[in-house]
């Protein structure tokens, strides 16, 4: 399953869906909102936006790349957009494979690729302003 969603991600359900009798390993990566702090200010939440449907298609392309490179039987990538509070999941990647090596490698590959090719952007909303991550554009002084 490849999806961009606006609601909390049910990671447990994604993993349960990926468990299969022909697989011995499920590797999961969950990206969560981390509260950075500096100069007496802190991140209150993240806000994500996506260029759709290009972003949806890029997630599917990453899935296809994975299935070409590794023996995996199930790949799910779900990215949340909108406001994501501290500790909450912004992205979940679930890969099932007969063996653990490919499962680990493929899930790592997925998150690295997401951070390079999928048109999604986040801004950190701090107690004293916001900043677009990667562009350093915003209202923090």
């Amino acid at each position: 399953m490849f999806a961009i969603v606006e609601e909390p991600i049910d990671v447990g359900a994604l993993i349960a869906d990926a468990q299969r009798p022909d697989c011995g390993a499920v590797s999961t990566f969950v990206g969560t909102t981390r509260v950075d702090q500096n100069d007496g200010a802190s991140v209150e939440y993240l806000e994500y936006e996506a260029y759709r449907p290009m972003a949806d298609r890029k997630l599917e392309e990453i899935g296809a790349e994975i299935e070409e490179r590794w023996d995996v039987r199930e790949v799910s990538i779900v990215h949340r957009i909108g406001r994501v509070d501290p500790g909450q999941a912004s992205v979940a990647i679930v890969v099932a494979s007969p063996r653990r090596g490919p499962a680990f490698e493929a899930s790592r590959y997925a998150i690295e690729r997401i951070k390079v090719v999928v048109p999604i952007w986040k801004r950190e909303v701090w107690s004293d302003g916001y900043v677009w991550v990667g562009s350093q554009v915003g209202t923090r002084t």
Partner: protein
Amino acid sequence: MSGIKVLLFGAAADRAGTRETVISAETTTLDELWPILAERHPGLSPMRDTLAFAVNGEYARGDASVSPGDEVAVLPPVSGG
């Protein structure tokens, strides 16, 4: 009326002050479209070197052709995950 639709995202939308604009032009290239866009939204200019572009939903280089009816997207460095 069927100009080139330009979508802006993230920091680019922020600096431009808009998420969408339409440029009236004949068939041209992304490189030639840029000065028109930057003149209309001067806040974008300092970002030039960090931006990528898509034409009709796929990454495209500066020499890519764009025509009326196409959708161009202005993409700051992505930061998903």
